[in-house]
């Protein structure tokens, strides 16, 4: 309902703005997605469907078709992009399997006069637009929060993501920078949780016996619940575990909060960022001047807005926000 209102408002806004919609009503936008196998990606596709269907029915654009490759492979996605060029799309919105391996195909698309906007999994090809999350700041914000909550500091356990993926490197770099700034914290252990609760639980359970008392666990999302389970199974006191906006994590946090006033925070990128990319592509097609690198804020949940966010999160899903044309324009004009 709120989305519909937001959209109506944005339509009204755009009409006031003048020609915003007139020029893109015949344009076709495609979403090239490399993976759909987890709750985050499912939420991303649902958000895309919801927002773009509205936009198509209102005549903002002629079509906004989502495509997902059957397997999460860069070569397959490159072929998918080349097919989109043949199908005559005016803009391609991409969540890329690799930041570099699609560059050849993206160059072909740009040469064919197609607007390419990448988000989440961004691409390095200079002719494409990038909507990136400041993952480093996301890592740093966790330590900043902990520094406020635990002024005396203590031992940290770091759960990292999938090795060799740039997102993992960036969040880790942010956490490292935060620890350097707050020397009262010390990382005593680091495991790879692959952004999955079961993997994280196994990894944490394996390393726990060798660790001294842990004051807090810094995470990358999708691993906080597993870590909590591992601590409980080892009968160790539950440290402050930073969560990653997943529904199971929020539910666990809520139950702990009700039981003993457990405090933490939760941070991740909202899957609805796909809709932001859609509006940015629409704005570029509309002839707006948009700089090539845009930054999207991450979605943070705190003690006081936990219930509200949990209510809006689907079972097994991820806390989400969808973006409107107005939000996109704000991101575009932001410095």
């Amino acid at each position, binding site marked *: 309902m709120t989305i519909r209102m937001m959209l109506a408002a944005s339509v009204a806004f755009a009409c006031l703005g003048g020609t915003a919609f007139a020029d893109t009503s015949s344009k076709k936008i495609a979403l090239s997605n490399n993976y759909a196998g987890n709750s985050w990606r499912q939420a991303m596709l649902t958000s895309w469907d919801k927002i773009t269907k509205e936009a198509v029915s209102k005549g903002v654009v002629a079509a906004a*078709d989502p495509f*997902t490759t059957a397997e999460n492979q860069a070569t397959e996605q490159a072929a998918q992009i080349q*097919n989109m060029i043949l199908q005559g799309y005016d803009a391609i919105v991409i969540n890329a399997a690799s930041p570099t391996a699609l560059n050849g195909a993206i160059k072909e698309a740009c040469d064919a006069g197609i607007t390419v906007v990448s988000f989440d999994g961004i691409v390095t090809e200079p002719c494409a637009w990038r909507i990136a999350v400041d993952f480093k700041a996301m890592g740093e914000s966790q330590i900043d929060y902990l520094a406020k909550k635990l002024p005396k500091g203590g031992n940290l356990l770091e759960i990292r993501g999938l090795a060799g993926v740039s997102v993992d490197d960036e969040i880790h770099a942010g956490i490292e920078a935060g620890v350097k700034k707050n020397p009262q914290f010390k990382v005593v252990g680091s495991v790879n949780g692959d952004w999955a609760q079961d993997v994280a639980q196994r990894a944490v359970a394996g390393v726990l016996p060798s660790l001294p008392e842990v004051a807090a666990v810094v995470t990358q999302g999708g691993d906080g619940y597993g870590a909590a389970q591992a601590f409980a199974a080892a009968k160790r006191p539950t440290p402050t575990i930073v969560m990653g906006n997943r529904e199971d994590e929020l539910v666990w946090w809520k139950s702990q909060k009700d039981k003993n006033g457990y405090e933490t925070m939760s941070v991740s990128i909202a899957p609805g960022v796909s809709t932001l990319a859609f509006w940015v592509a629409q704005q570029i097609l509309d002839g707006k001047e948009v700089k090539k690198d845009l930054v999207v804020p991450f979605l943070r949940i705190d003690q006081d807005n936990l219930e509200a966010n949990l209510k809006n999160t689907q079972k097994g899903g991820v806390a989400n926000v969808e973006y409107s044309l107005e939000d996109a324009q704000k991101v575009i004009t932001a410095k």
Partner: protein
Amino acid sequence: MKLSSGTIRLIIPAASLALLLAAVFYMQPRAMSYTGLNLLFNLAVPIALATIAQMLIMSVNDLDLSMGTFVSFCACVAATVLQNSPLLGVLIFIGAIAAYAGMGVLIHVRELPSIVVTLGMSFVWGGLAVLLLPSPGGTAPSWARAIMTAKPPLVPMAIVASILIAAVTHYIVMRSSFGVLMRGTGGNDRSVERAGWSVIGIRAATYALAGLFAILAGIALVGLTTSADANIALRYTLLSIAGVILGGGEFVGGKVSPIGAVIGALTLTLAGSFLSFMRISPDWQIGAQGAILIVVLALRLALNRLEKREKHQ
């Protein structure tokens, strides 16, 4: 006129390719152009090269499960070392070919199952690729980029390259004496040995040649993508095996067809585009791809029956 089974063996993959191509042209007339054909097929070139490499290994009754990681490794070498210091890059590639030959020798001497050895090697190649390129990046050598994006008159590069690959490997495998020995080793290595040939040498040479084609696949891939990533070609392991089988090859007996293998690789690539143009939801796409494979293989089964009948006559 009665067609021989060998010709029919080639007709089925060719006919399936033509049928798919006709369907794609019907759905997307834009594809029926110079750029369209190039876009449809240029990613098939590295797959075709990898399929040829796999076919060589299969011609001596082995199977290479490290093809995908090896091509990824080669792509990483091409995008980093070969670009920065070409001499060292070439040396690494020569070393890789030697490693392939060594693998062939090891498999032969110790009578190890090739799938186990190559599966083990796949972790080695994967690890080396990550060491070389811990996060995606690198730059394609400009000559590789120039070759892969060349625009020859009349016929797009992807088609020219496919025909060239098919012609060269057809000569090596079907016409040269080395090719006969190789296929003979796959058919009956003991008789080849009794005839005085060194089967170990033949196997080593076959593996080395396969390594060379896999390296070419890696370079061609980087030429298309402009940069590499340690996981870039993982799919090639299964794609290359499917390509060989689709093109009329067999797992055992030294029965392979280089022209068929190239056609098989093109068909697999086209099948992906076809399903995407059909707007089949991704949940069904893997299944649909499988269905195409099964249909072609069912035709093959009928063909095998025909062949048997021919022999009985």
